[in-house]
């Protein structure tokens, strides 16, 4: 692998080359040259250039512009589902993660069952199962004022997604907590802190910093997986695109715009995650 990297991916150090010799014939070369002067990584420059080209095409083409405007209305629901599902998943995951590192065998067993069972079922099946089996049952068994939760497709989708992602996040939190040296808990307990206080003030602040990259990763994954709730007729970006493209017989234009819209959102999140990592980095 190292040989491969060296052979195919070795790039000359741009800063060291005189300007005339800088590679500039192809896009990758241009990107590289730009990345040399702009401090951006080459891949970001490529995406930036491609994005600018795409934006230019969309803005100058009336048909693409109107498709973009129409499909954009699906974004609100996609973001609504994503943010609420992720917030809930963070809570479920934290609780389950803490139970997974607990010495209490009952808590540990419950959390482990949750993680193993949920993680082993495809998210789409989980969403459909919740929608067709669990939600109708709950809608009839909870008090009437809460029943609306189990009759609203978007809320059902949010719950199913968050339960599914909670299982993944539980493992992320657990890994983060276990990565903190034992001495930290011992020091905190020796200073008289209770176990919950030590977790809250000493262990979790460090563990969460450690797992910010995988947490961010799962946030981006969840945004993409929010497309799955189209299966239970939540008219988010994917289902909306599907309907529009079927009605207009223009799949290429519609799905291209949809893909670009997802990409813009995920790249935006990626930037936010990087910022958070830097913002909360422990000074060295």
């Amino acid at each position, binding site marked *: 692998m190292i040989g491969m990297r060296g052979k195919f991916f070795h790039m000359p150090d741009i800063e060291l080359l005189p300007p005339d010799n800088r590679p500039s014939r192809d896009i990758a070369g241009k990107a590289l040259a730009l990345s040399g002067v702009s401090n951006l990584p080459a891949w970001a420059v490529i995406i930036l250039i491609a994005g600018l080209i795409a934006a230019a095409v969309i803005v100058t083409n009336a048909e693409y512009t109107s498709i973009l405007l129409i499909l954009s209305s699906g974004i609100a629901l996609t973001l609504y589902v994503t943010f609420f599902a992720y917030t809930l998943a963070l809570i479920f995951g934290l609780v389950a993660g803490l139970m997974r590192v607990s010495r209490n065998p009952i808590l540990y067993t419950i959390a482990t069952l949750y993680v193993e069972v949920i993680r082993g079922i495809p998210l789409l099946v989980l969403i459909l199962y919740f929608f067709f089996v669990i939600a109708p049952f709950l809608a009839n068994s909870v008090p009437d004022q809460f029943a609306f939760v189990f009759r609203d497709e978007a809320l059902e989708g949010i719950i199913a997604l968050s339960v599914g992602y909670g299982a993944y996040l539980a493992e992320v939190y657990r890994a983060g907590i276990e990565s903190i040296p034992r001495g930290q808990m011992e020091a905190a307990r*020796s200073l008289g802190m209770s176990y919950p206080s030590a977790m809250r003030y000493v262990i979790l602040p460090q563990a969460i910093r450690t797992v910010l990259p995988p947490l961010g990763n799962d946030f981006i994954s969840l945004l993409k997986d929010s497309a799955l709730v189209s299966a239970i007729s939540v008219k988010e970006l994917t289902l909306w695109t599907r309907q529009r493209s079927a009605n207009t017989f223009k799949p290429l234009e519609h799905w291209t715009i949809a893909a670009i819209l997802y990409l813009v959102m995920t790249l935006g999140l990626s930037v936010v995650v990087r910022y958070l990592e830097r913002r909360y980095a422990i000074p060295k």
Partner: protein
Amino acid sequence: MSNGSPIIRIENVHKRFGKLHALRGVSLNVERGQVLVIIGPSGSGKSTLLRCINGLEIPEEGRVTVDDIPVTHSAANINAVRAEVGIVFQQFNLFPHLTVLQNVTLSQQVVRKRTPVESQRIARELLSKVGIPEKAGAYPAQLSGGQQQRVAIARALAMNPKIMLFDEPTSALDPEMIKEVLDAMLVLAQEGMTMVVVSHEMGFARAAANRVIFMDEGTVVEDGAPEQMFTHARGERMKQFMSKILY
């Protein structure tokens, strides 16, 4: 709470880790104001004994009593004991995500419920005492080992302990940083703090300790005043040990 009774009482303590029998019937009393240095080869149970005093380890047999509070699995007892016993670790164990000042104020605010203003005042006093007031805003990773260990001492002192435990406090330090940590410990000893120190710093033992015990294979083998112990070791095992560590 009479001044005559030992502040730490250890009676016939046994501790096992799986097959390893780390402590084999240790009995030891420590008087108020005593500075006790524990020496012995690695694996002799020194650190385990120390950790039994603040409940980081709970012995299977025997009794440990600190200031008349039995150290048992009871959470209330352990928290009460830990409030009176400070410990300094070989690896410092500072909280890396907090500044030096926050390291020293955190447990004051969380456990002692002191206000931020009061806890910061106390923290700054203690940082001056250990000689690094100017590092209050730094993070642990930005300090040298010696400085980190002195912060760890200040952090433990902030809880106003009656007893300070030191678990090989200078073993992870570069040679030129050992003295600054021992100096801080010597000041504490001179102020009358009850101290139990696991360390092979003979110079410190001579200057600060009024009692040295030698442990081997989970038992206390010799017990006496530092000079007498170092110059007239009676037992063969202690003589062997001394001949190995003294160059």
